[in-house]
């Protein structure tokens, strides 16, 4: 043996046998703390969360720049004024959350990885032995990841708001946080990510396999809406059904203008939230029935 790691461990616990029931039960708060330690102690997870935040801010800045550029490129002030009328305030209002499309893919993948890798590595057996009430263990993990996702979404949108103002101001498109719908858009960017996290982690819990789980949730969030759009062109009922997809709900949540007949932000929240809660409930029931 090269290290002293395996030499002369002390005699077992020298303490008498104290029973400290009062101070030492499992609680939801303690399960949360445990999950927080787990998430923050794997470097790749932390790095991915940081990357998601940075990319979301960067994409917002990029969109702001492109929006401003397309208006400024016309030297003719009359033309610019006309175009500004078309590129109504709604477009600018939606800039802070522009990274959401990309952010939700990263958050969805991470949420699947966090739970499915527990099965992959065997960690789930440690988790479920220390917290044998499986719903409690899963809800703690869901809550921590949903909380992180909300902060990533709303936080990056808020930072992006301040980053993009100087850029948008060059085209006279700047707006205030107090403007109608601005704050709702920023908060909902966080809420969408939180609900997407719950959605994807529930899929990961049901499938228990990282690769299959990631492909499934990305498929539902990204590929399914494309298919519905393509086949919905000629078929009314397919298009109608497509409005109830989780991704459609998320789109409406962060919309800064609601077109005629489209769902409002709150209706969008009901759709995405409904899907997430349905999958969450299913994952809890199934996990309680199956062996770990």
């Amino acid at each position, binding site marked *: *043996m090269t*290290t*002293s*790691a*395996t*030499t*002369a*461990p*002390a*005699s*077992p*616990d020298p*303490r*008498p*046998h*104290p*029973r*400290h*029931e009062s*101070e*030492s*039960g*499992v*609680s939801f708060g*303690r*399960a949360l*703390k*445990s*999950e927080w*330690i*787990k998430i923050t*102690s*794997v*470097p*790749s997870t932390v790095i991915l969360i940081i990357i998601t935040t940075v990319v979301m801010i960067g994409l917002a800045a990029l969109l702001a720049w492109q929006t401003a550029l397309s208006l400024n490129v016309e030297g003719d002030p009359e033309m610019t004024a006309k175009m500004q009328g078309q590129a109504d305030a709604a477009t600018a209002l939606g800039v802070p959350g522009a990274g959401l499309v990309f952010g939700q893919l990263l958050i969805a993948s991470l949420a699947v990885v966090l739970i499915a*890798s*527990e099965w992959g*590595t*065997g*960690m*789930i*057996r*440690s988790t*479920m*032995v*220390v*917290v*044998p*009430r499986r719903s409690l263990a899963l809800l703690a993990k869901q809550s921590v990841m949903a909380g992180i996702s909300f902060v990533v979404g709303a936080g990056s949108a808020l930072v992006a708001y301040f980053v993009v103002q100087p850029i948008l101001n060059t085209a006279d498109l700047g707006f205030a946080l107090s403007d109608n719908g601005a704050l709702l858009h920023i908060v909902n960017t966080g809420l969408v990510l939180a609900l997407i996290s719950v959605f994807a982690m529930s899929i990961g819990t049901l499938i228990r396999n990282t690769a299959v789980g990631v492909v499934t949730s990305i498929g539902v969030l990204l590929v399914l809406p494309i298919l519905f759009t393509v086949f919905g062109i000629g078929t009314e009922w397919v298009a109608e059904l497509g409005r109830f997809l989780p991704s459609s709900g998320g789109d409406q949540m962060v919309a800064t203008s609601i077109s005629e007949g489209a769902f409002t932000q709150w209706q969008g929240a009901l759709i995405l939230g409904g899907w997430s809660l349905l999958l969450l409930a299913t994952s809890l029931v199934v996990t309680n*029935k*199956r*062996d*770990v």
Partner: protein
Amino acid sequence: MIEAQALSKRYGTKTAVDAVSFTAQPGKVTGFLGPNGAGKSTTMRMIVGLDNPSGGRATVNGVPYAKHKAPLRELGALLDAKAVHPKRSAYTHLRALAATHGIPNSRVREVIELAGLGPVARKRVGGFSLGMGQRLGIASALLGDPSTVILDEPVNGLDPEGVQWVRRLAKSLAAEGRTVFLSSHLMSEMALTADHLIVIGRGRIIADAPVQSIIDGQGAARVRVRADRPQDLLGSLAADGVSAQILEPELLEITGVEPRRVAEAAVRNGVLVYELTPIQLSLEDAYLQLTSQEVEYQSHSLTPSGLLAASTEGHRA
């Protein structure tokens, strides 16, 4: 204390654990012995609630494990040394487990020292050897200072020093009044560590007794005798349950009779006896006798002809 009552586990049509009932008492090391695939791990997983029983129930200190408010205080388990995320350090892994019960970091450091993991506590678990993984598993089992400890194959992958350490640990935990429930497929290990044995084969309990009585029970008193007139001696010993094998003209092995009765018979018949040796069965023998009918993956002895047959088949293929 662990109690299993008619505990069963079925996977489809296959029965892995078949209505198993036993008790692991406090203050004792209870060995759980059986061939691979006998249902040891499944039984242990049902005790801690990882597997849902198909029938029956298991309790820890009178209550199903999952119903305890502070399960880690009741029972600590090493079920699988690899139940760890490889990118976490031993210290953070234990800290995450401890956090669920509000166990302080001082206790985490204590079990790290106890398991001899001090120098590698901050290193990623992914780089651990099997033996260090076992030590980490044992550290996590002791985290909550539990009154019952379950260790599934704890000496797997440990070096001789580590094996000795686990032995001493199991015994001293039992000496402190805790319940220690220890599985192994190594009988020699059990002979050294366990006070009480539960032998399982094909999902059924085939013995549940103190170690010594299992050895005795299977032994059916065998005696080796060297005598000048073996036939005369056997003639007067003939009774139900007594059988003998003549190994050499003057060497016998008699089963089912105490050495004293052999000596008495020799005196009565004037037979000269110049060796009289009671043969004690090893735990190994007892175990093999017990489980011979219950082994799932049996190795077949290769007779010379068998070997030959196998190799010629190999050539043809």
